[in-house]
């Protein structure tokens, strides 16, 4: 039976908050953030009703409406009789999200071989000897400093931005995979060989299967760096994408667009993270995180 709440529990380590407490506490900072924003917005709008630095709720709704239902400035205006679906389909936020998502998922796909290299580095000692030092060194290169080289090599369109993401995150993922796969107990590998496994069986059916949940977690942790490199690329050289729009809006002081965009990006990453976490739990019911 749950213990009644005492104030001293707030500083206790060996306490188990009731579900209601957990849920209530986790929303407090959101509510506080919104309240603070509203407060400062009201104060600034009292001084200047046209203030654009902290847009009011009305301005924000207008901005949101413009993002979700109207095409971007550079696009042709939509037929006035267009359906809601057509409006959303040709909206600014849809176009930007689609462009950014295309780059993001292409980079994510290209990171799969990087993880496989990390796996091979851990399982096959010669592969490890071949790659390890180079990857360790490469990992220390600040990916953004490679941007000029990438622009020269790949041009300023899609591939330079995708490669920036891949080069920025791949060494970390490779090393992470290498460490995780290297942590599989030796006994498991020996046991697998006594059960007539081949080298590839051990690599893919024993080690990879065991470390897959941790690799998915590693990808989850790298979603933000991946988005960071995407934003860097899009802000510097792009004609569409979420970060491009934020950069453009900054010039116009369009906080009513920038803030919904920021929240949208955070929501997208949060949802992707939640999806990966859910998938991981469903696919690997045996996984017992430490």
């Amino acid at each position, binding site marked *: 039976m749950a213990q009644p709440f005492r104030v001293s529990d707030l500083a206790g380590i060996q306490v188990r908050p009731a579900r209601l407490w957990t849920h209530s506490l986790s929303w407090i900072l959101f509510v506080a953030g919104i309240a603070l924003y509203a407060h400062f917005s009201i104060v600034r709008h009292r001084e200047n009703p046209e203030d654009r630095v902290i847009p009011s709720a009305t301005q924000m709704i207008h901005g949101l409406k413009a993002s979700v239902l109207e095409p971007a400035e550079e696009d042709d205006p939509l037929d006035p009789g267009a359906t809601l679906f057509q409006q959303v389909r040709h909206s600014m936020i849809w176009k930007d999200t689609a462009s950014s998502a295309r780059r993001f998922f292409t980079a994510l796909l290209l990171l799969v071989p990087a993880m496989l290299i990390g796996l091979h580095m851990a399982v096959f000692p010669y592969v490890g000897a071949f790659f390890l030092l180079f990857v360790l060194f490469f990992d220390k290169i600040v990916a953004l400093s490679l941007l000029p080289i990438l622009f020269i090599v790949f041009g300023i369109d899609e591939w330079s931005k995708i490669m920036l993401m891949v080069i920025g995150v791949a060494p970390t993922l490779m090393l992470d995979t290498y460490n995780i796969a290297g942590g599989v*107990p030796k*006994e*498991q590998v*020996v*046991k*697998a*060989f*006594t*059960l*007539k*496994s*081949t080298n590839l*069986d051990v690599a893919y059916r*024993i080690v990879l*299967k*065991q470390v897959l949940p941790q690799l998915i977690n590693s990808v989850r942790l790298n979603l933000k760096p991946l988005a960071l490199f995407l934003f860097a690329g899009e802000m510097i050289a792009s004609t569409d994408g979420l970060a491009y729009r934020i950069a453009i809006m900054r010039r116009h002081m369009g906080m009513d667009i920038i803030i919904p965009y920021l929240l949208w990006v955070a929501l997208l990453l949060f949802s992707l993270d939640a999806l990966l976490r859910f998938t991981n739990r469903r696919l*690997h*019911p*045996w*996984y*017992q995180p430490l």
Partner: protein
Amino acid sequence: MVSAALRLVDAVAAQAAPQRTEIELRDVSVSYSAGKEGSKTVLSKLNLKVGAGEFVVILGETGCGKSTLLRLILGQEFPTEGVIEVDGKPVMSIDARCGYVPQKYSLFPDRTVLGNVMYGPENAKSRFLARFRPSFFAYRRKLRVEAQAYLVRMGLRPQDMNKYPHQLSGGMQQRVAIAQALLMHPPVLLLDEAFSALDPSTRASLQEQLQGVWQESKPTVVFVTHNTSEALSLGTRLILLRRHHEDLAGETNLVLDMEIPRSSLPLSMRVKSLEFQELLEHVRQLAYESSSLHTDDSESDSSVEEGTLA
């Protein structure tokens, strides 16, 4: 249903009686580099011949090279000097003729109990695309029945078959690990302190089961333990090792190699007999003289005997 399953196991065991395998170690020494201190010798000038169907128990204090010896036979490590042969052929890599049960991490955590036990035979039967043939599915169905029968025999309940290893107790996990190794019908079975992390009653029950399996199909068993009572009650032969010291340079660290007198008594009764107790005292004395084995051994021994009697 259980009795039908057991009959099936007996039939399969008789059908797949493992071929006899002899293990031979000649002048085997193992040294590791120990940085500034030069090298550390773990095994020195070890000569050993394990006959086919023997149940050899290797006993000794921590650091005397028991597990190293097992890894050498398995092909996981190689000697600095000397030769190891299984069935007349030098051991060059991990030998799939050996069944292996380590103390921990013996099961694949991502597979269910049945998945763990069926993994080896499935591998042995066919690879990659051949697993999509109808004949493989038929084989799998047959194997499933055999695996279930083995597991029932090892004391698992039908409802445990689809559990993951983390959902089982340590004792249950070791039962599955033994079944996993046995289903491959290995001519050599290597157990590395396989029961040392278990409670006395589980340990006693697993000892009985291992004895039963060995008596039935007589694989060559090499069992590493630091528990004298367990060693004497299970094996047909005892190898006592001591830790290698500087002043033993050039000498073997084999202290004792003796046949353990057989008894027709069941395992639980055997440990209570006077002969057994005298032998136990004798081996403990030897172990005491050659090392500091007595300190932790006496504690674990008493617990095992309690378990065996329970």
